């Protein structure tokens, strides 16, 4: 994701869009340089730009798949960390578990944003997106599983009865040895 952003994302300071096909110079803030005719340039570059576009969309698709697979590495690392953290409740294992839960959730929330740069009419993004979501769900499941092994999920009867106060008694009896 990070790499994709660095190349195609908002990291750019400025850009000249050579594929701008508009003929009216008034649409731009600055007038065309002298000797430059917009119409002829367009006609000359049309084939070149098509080729360029194809290459770009291919590259985009490739990048999108790469981005989609990125959580897998994360998943492996998380698994290793969890194994290292052990099954007792302490600060480290709690931290690992909660980050393992938080990362997939935040990634899933930002799934649109992650694939924003690769949005293209020609690029099929559904596949990478599904893979991305599936891998993150896998990470989430891992986190939940870890939570359960730590005993922090209410999956036992004891979790539901421990807060119940003792039942009321119907009868009352008092007394003892006479004073």
């Amino acid at each position: 994701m990070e790499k994709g952003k660095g190349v195609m994302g908002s990291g750019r300071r400025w850009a000249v869009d050579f594929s701008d096909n508009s003929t009216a110079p008034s649409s731009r803030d600055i007038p065309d340089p002298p000797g430059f005719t917009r119409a002829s340039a367009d006609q000359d570059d049309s084939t070149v730009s098509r080729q360029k576009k194809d290459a770009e969309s291919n590259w985009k698709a490739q990048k999108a798949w790469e981005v989609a697979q990125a959580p897998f590495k994360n998943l492996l690392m998380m698994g290793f960390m969890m194994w290292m953290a052990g099954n007792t409740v302490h600060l480290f294992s709690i931290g690992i578990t909660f980050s393992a839960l938080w990362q997939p959730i935040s990634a899933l929330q930002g799934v649109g944003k992650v694939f924003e740069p690769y949005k293209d009419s020609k690029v099929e993004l559904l596949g990478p997106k599904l893979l991305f979501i599936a891998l993150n769900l896998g990470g989430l499941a891992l986190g939940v599983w870890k939570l359960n092994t730590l005993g922090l999920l209410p999956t036992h009867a004891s979790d539901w009865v421990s807060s119940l106060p003792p039942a009321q008694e119907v009868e009352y009896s008092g007394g003892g040895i006479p004073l």
Partner: protein
Amino acid sequence: MPITYAFLLFLIFSSLQPILSLYEDQVGLTDWHQQYIGKVKQAVFHTHKTGRKRVVVSTEDNVIATLDLRRGEIFWRHVLGHNDVVDGIVIALGKYVITLSSEGSILRAWNLPDGQMVWESSLHGPKHSKSLLVMTNVVIEKDNVVIIFSNDRLHAVSCIDGEVLWNKDFEVESLEVQKVIQPPGSNFVYVVGFAASSHFEMYQINARNGELLKHESAAFSGGFSGEVSLVSSETLVALDSTGLILLRISFHKGNVSIQQTPISNLVEDSPGPAVIIPSSIMELFAIKINAVTIFIRVTGTGKLEVVEKANHETAVGDALSISEGQQAFGLVQHAGRDIHLTVKLAHDWGGDLLKESIIMDQQRGLIHKVFINNYVRTDGSYGFRALIVMEDHSLLLLQQGTIVWSREDGLASIIDVTTSELPVERAGVSVAKVELNLFEWLKGHMLKLKGTLMLASPEDIAAIQYMRLKSSEKSKMTRDHNGFRKLLIALTRAGKLFALHTGDGRIVWSLLLQSLHKSEACQHPIGLNLCPWQVPHHHALDENPSVLVVGRCGPSSDAPGVISFVDSYTGKELSSSSLVHSVAQVIPLPYTDSTEQRLHLLIDADKHAHLYPKTPEAIGIFRREFSNIYWYSVEDDNGIIKGYALKSKCDGNVADKFCFGTRELWSIVLPSESEKIVATVTRKLNEAVHTQAKLIAADQDVMYKYISRNLLFVATVAPKASGEIGSVTPEESWLVVYLIDTVTGFVLHRVTHHGSQGPVEAVFSENWVVYHYFNLRAHRYEMSVIEIYDQSRADNKDVWKLVVGKHNLTSPISSYSRSEVVTKSQSYFFTHSLKAIAVTSTAKGITSKQLLIGTIGDQVLALDKRFLDPRRSVNPTQAEREEGTIPLTDSLPIIPQSYITHNLRVEGLRGIITVPAELESTTLVFAHGLDLFFTHFAPSRTYDSLTEDFSCALLLITIVVLVAAIFVTWVLSQRKELQDKWR
């Protein structure tokens, strides 16, 4: 692993190994200790030497102590065993205190300056008798001799080493020796007494060797009664058996003569029999007819004449030789609010040596005893000081018309204790202490900060410690958030109520209950019970809380009862009444009326139940719950436990709608030839239980506790084994333990410990009971635990049913729905024998429990309940270890740091009371006996509050410094960035 358990562990994992000890400088911060001696029986002054002036006292609580005459502080004190009653004390050789105790069979000498025992000798004799101790001035081989009559034998004992020099038996059957007299300057003693109640016997015995010099007897057909008064070294005064004729018995030079004088000759309108006030004043004695004290002089010719009739309550002290042949005696009379102390010469009634009038606190009641002592003033005249013992057992020293000091020794004999909240702090409530001003507050915090940063000088440290100890915060008269400040209300044997502040142990108010005051109708009133009567907390906050005091006129169970209601804030008696019925049991019911007055049932000796308060509202509440109220009685002398239900009307012809008859429902008859009830215990009525589930981490299981208020623990032993430990063989001794449902009489559990013996001390809490007994086979004390679990609800284990709430765990339970229980039990050896046992109680019942054990050494030891877990095993699994299960050991450890009384002793420990504070982690512990001890105790450490040594000032300063640093660095970074941009 379940979620709550894990969270609890996470939250308090620092407290898994609670360290209960405290640092040296924490002593006295939350705890206080007060020392008492009990009601003084005899006092001997020691003021001759130039050293510290002191008085040696013996008390009804078997204490021998010396007190500082200047301040009333205890120099030293010895508490003898409860069957080692002190019969007499004398000072010998100016350096020994000689005490006769244990019905005249043990004579001990104590070193006067430091109280160390010098010698002890035991005196034996043929049979039990009155014990008399007489100091003589006879010297045998440079030994001063003390003469003791005890166990029907006369002994002469050396003061130096306690050796018995000679002893002498008296052949006459049924001789009741009244006095042993040594005439001054002589070498013989007179032993005088009555035989067969109609003979006067006189023996003259050589004090050097015990040789009988003379024996005379005289018959008097009218018989003798009561005490005798000595009016000279060879004359005494007694009363005949009717109490109407005074007998002057003279045995001058061994010739016995009895002279009779009817009291009616002396006093014209003498309405009834008289009582002699025993004294030994030259030529003078006092008798008491009803409430009138009459002083009678015996003239040299043997004539009797009345010198004064005192209508007020009067106490007479013993004679005091002030100079050669002159005797003085003290006399204290009540006159309204004042008392008059008079010191007179024995032979001159009119001439008062001293006459003082002192304003006396009405709450101290009547004067019971007076002891006087003289000193020589700078101008050569005699001054007198008087030590007086009051009705409330307090001890006061009077000198020069003022009370020099007073000791509240009534607190040595507390019968019952309850607590009361203090007023809420608001505008209308006056706060006794003035708040610290800002400067002092700042100064205090600066000192504390210096202490934290280790910059404090020794003086500063002392000042910090003083500030901590004397913090006005802890002794305020208002309620605090943590619930540490409360009133401890104690009922003493003298019938006095004391309210002690938990902060510093001072007496906030005291009240001598008029209802427990001796009167015509009520001759021997005794206090029985103290219950919280009204505890306003929600809708009745404007009312003051009050307590109910229940008493009885006389020791028998059918004596009429008295009740009294006392305001806990002001200490005023709101109302009191003597009841028409007796009081056998007091049962607080779990219902309160609209003013938060708790309903109480008083059961009388005829098994009628009387409802209090006597209001229509109370009866309405009671009628609603009528069918669900039961009561039981344990008749421990014949081994029967009976359960009763109530009937709507009283059986007799009494038209009292607050009286209810009872009918017997069940009875458990224990075989009297094999079982004798030695202990019963129930759960505390106000105990808070947090959960009904016991979580077992190992197999992720849950067990349901059998929590019932209606459970009774009964321990019985073989009748043979009810004596002392070791009096029976293990084969003929056993201990049987029952758990009985007191509504149905159903025995839930029964277990027999063969070869075990009492005494049994037990404590019942939640679903477990811990009891302590002696194992004869192992020759050790044991503590056993029984935990009771409800098997009938054990199948509530389906998580989904629990999630949607389809379970019967919160539905009300009836004792009649017969439940299956399983018990788990385990026994452990324990080193100490113990005097009392209690368990910590906290506000919500979440904090883990610790047992508080009053050891035989009069200390309070905290023992974690986890040590008494029946599920301890030799090799606990990892999960069990995490849960806190301790590996199984055969004996319970005694960790020296967990003595909550640290280095103090609560002499004569009788009871331990635990009261929850508002703070869940903390419980307030009050131990009483002769001494009082109070402390805060956190069974799992104070996990819910900052520790006392946490420095708020340091935290504040750190925050301020951090904020300042952030600001400064922010400004600096801004500047640097700007410079970078210009570059």
